[in-house]
Each structure stands twice: as C-alpha cells, then as structure tokens.
C-alpha cells in the first residue's frame, strides 16, 4: 500500500502550521506539498511524500545504515570488489 516518494524541499510558505506548504523537487518534477505533519522540515531537507503530504523528514544519517549493516555482517568484500 501507500506509495511514498522522497523529494527535496526548495522553499516553504505559509505561516499557519497546518497550511504550510513546500515546493518539493522530485528529481526534476516540482510539486507543492503540504508540510503540516513535518513542522520541523526546512529548505534542503528530504521529505517522504504520500498523496500530497510530507509524512516524515528523511534522516540522512540513518539512510546509510543499510550499507553499514551489510559491511558489518561480512559482505563488505563482495561489495567493494564488485563495486
């Protein structure tokens, strides 16, 4: 269920926290996105967007963990050899 796509906030507007919107760049496609549920989101952040709403700010440090975990469980050599 629940298609959600990451995009980067280019600008934000609106003072009312529930109506705050951001122009979000999805790989070259721009769309106005409601930021009511990500009050902490600022310009440059990547947000995950579902049906026009940002539902979270993507944690860039955590985003690396899938690769760090792979190294940790000993598949590092394969990854570096082929990569």
């Amino acid at each position, binding site marked *: 269920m*629940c*298609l959600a796509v990451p995009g980067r906030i280019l600008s934000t507007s609106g003072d009312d926290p529930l109506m705050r919107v951001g122009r979000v760049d*999805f*790989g*070259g*496609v*721009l*769309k*106005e996105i409601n930021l009511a549920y990500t009050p902490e989101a600022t310009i440059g952040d990547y947000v995950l967007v579902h049906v026009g709403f940002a539902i979270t700010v993507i944690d860039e440090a955590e985003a690396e963990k899938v690769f760090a975990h792979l190294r940790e469980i000993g598949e590092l050599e394969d990854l570096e050899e082929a990569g």
Partner: protein
Amino acid sequence: MTDGDFSLACPAPAGGDDTVQMAHGGGGRAMERLLDTIIRPAFDNPHLARRHDGAVLDLAGPVAFTTDSYVVKPLVFPGGDIGTLAVNGTVNDLAMCGARAAHLSVGLILEEGLPLDTLRRVVASMRSAADAAGVTLVTGDTKVVDHGKADGLFVNTAGLGPVVSAAPIGPDAVRAGDAVILSGDIGRHGIAVMAAREGFGFETVIESDCAPVVDPVMALIEAGVAVHCLRDLTRGGLASAAVEIGEAAGVSIALDEASIPVREDVNAACEILGLDPLHVANEGRFVAFVAEADAERAIDILRRFAVSAGAVRIGTVGGGAAGEVTCRGALGVDRIVDMLSGEQLPRIC
C-alpha cells in the same frame, strides 16, 4: 499563419464570440468564411486551391495507406498540440510501413464554442508539421457538433506515401536473433500530457517527444540495413509495442531494463504517479527490429538524426513462447512485460 483581423471580418452568428458556432458547419456562408479565413490559408496548396470535392493524385508503384483519429486533453500541451500529433502520427505510421508520407487528408470535428484562436493554432501546427515532414495536406473536411458533444476538437488524418523499402517490413519478417533498437528515451509525451491536465499540479520542463521519424527510417532503408519490423510507440508505450510484435511474429523478446533510456524527471513523475515508464505513451519514438549483423550500423545511422540521436539497443528476439516479453531488471532477474490492462490511472498504493 493567423489572421489578425479575423474577428472583425467574420460575420459570426448571434453572440459574436470569437468561437466556433453551429453555423460554421452549416454549409453556408459562415462555413465558407471559416474555411477561407482559417483553414485554406493555413494549408494553402494547389490541390486545395482547386476547391473540388477531392484531390486527384498521380500514384505509381506500391503505396502505403493509413488513417488515425486524434483525441487528446488538453488540446495544447508542452511540446505540441493535437495538430502536431495528428500530422506526425500519420507520417510516422507510414514510416513504420517503410513508406515516405506524401499526401494527407484532414478531417476536423469542431465543438461549438471552441475558441477560434485554438483552431488557428492547431491548423498552423498542422501546416508546420506537414512542412517539416515533407507532406502535403491535399483534402479535408470540417464539421461542427453541438456544445458538449466533443472535447473541443477531434482530428482525423489519413495518409498515402510510396513504399521505399524493397523487402517487406512487418511482424512476419521478424526472426529469432534480431536486435531490438529503440530510437530514444521513452515516456515524455504521456507525462507531459498528464502533467498539463488540471489536478496533478506538477511543474515540469517535460515536453512531448512528438516529432516525425520518417528521415531516420528512410536513412536505414536507403543504407540497405536489413530492417525486419518497425513500430512507433504510442499509447501503451514500449510494453504494448513489444507484446504486439511478439504475438504477431510468434517470437519472444528479451529486453534489458538498464539499457532503456528514461529521463530522470520522467522517471520521477512515474514514481509519483505509480506508473511504469514502459507503459507511458510516446509520439516520436519507435523500435526497429533489424538483423543482428546490421545492429551496430543501424544505431550509427539513427544517431545522425536529432529525433533519434539517443538510439540504443534494448534487447534481442528469441525463440520462446509467442508474445512473451521479458525484461531483465536492476537486480538481474527477468520479469514479464505485459500490455497495460485498461486506462492508465495514477495510484496511491
């Protein structure tokens, strides 16, 4: 073209709007004015100047003949309009038969209330598309229907052109081992039209790829490349074209997803709307099935033309089950590619 004085000169029926009225299709003076001020000046050529019921053509040798009707919403979209679509679509259909389009007919069905400016723009686009493709609009027809009975404007075009290729081009000439070559990146037309529709609120720079592909196709044939089959990718996208040819030719087709060019922003729009780029419409792209030995040369020739500068090999014809199209994905696993079932709808899940 545009006739700046048109609204002053036109004895528009009651209302006087600069829009199409029922009287414009009534066969009387209003219709003659519409033809004289908008249609005939746009398409001006000796055939139309005869003001006869039809065109008389001098044809010799094998001739390809095709027709297509065009309905698109919105009528004008980034990179083109219904007029460019209607001319290029028919020119391209003839090219897929190994023929160079020479003569086109145009049928216009206008909805009462259509702004005359829109009509002017569309016929001007048709003229410039025809000039670009080297084809003449030799005969035509205009009808007007009641408000609400058409989406502004429908266009039918039919085309005739001499067949240039000596060898037959079509699905029955496809053989196992043939190379599958795609003329450029896919998905731009479908996304450009969808983004222009109200509701989605996309800001993009994506323009339709609508263009005539006749020159690169003729170059392939004239260079003696063993072209077995050609198919333009329109509605249903690359997936439908591949499955149709696989079924008609009784062969399987193996595609490699990584080799299929899709622009970053087109890909992003597909992700947002939950669409598969292989299913998205194109209007200036085709696939060529050519003998393996000629594959490299065919790609080199296609790349000399702007419209097919991005030509790449995307797969190979196999001897598997008829119509079985597979696509090797990012992780190296093959998946089945099927035609779209029904209308393409954006999804949330």
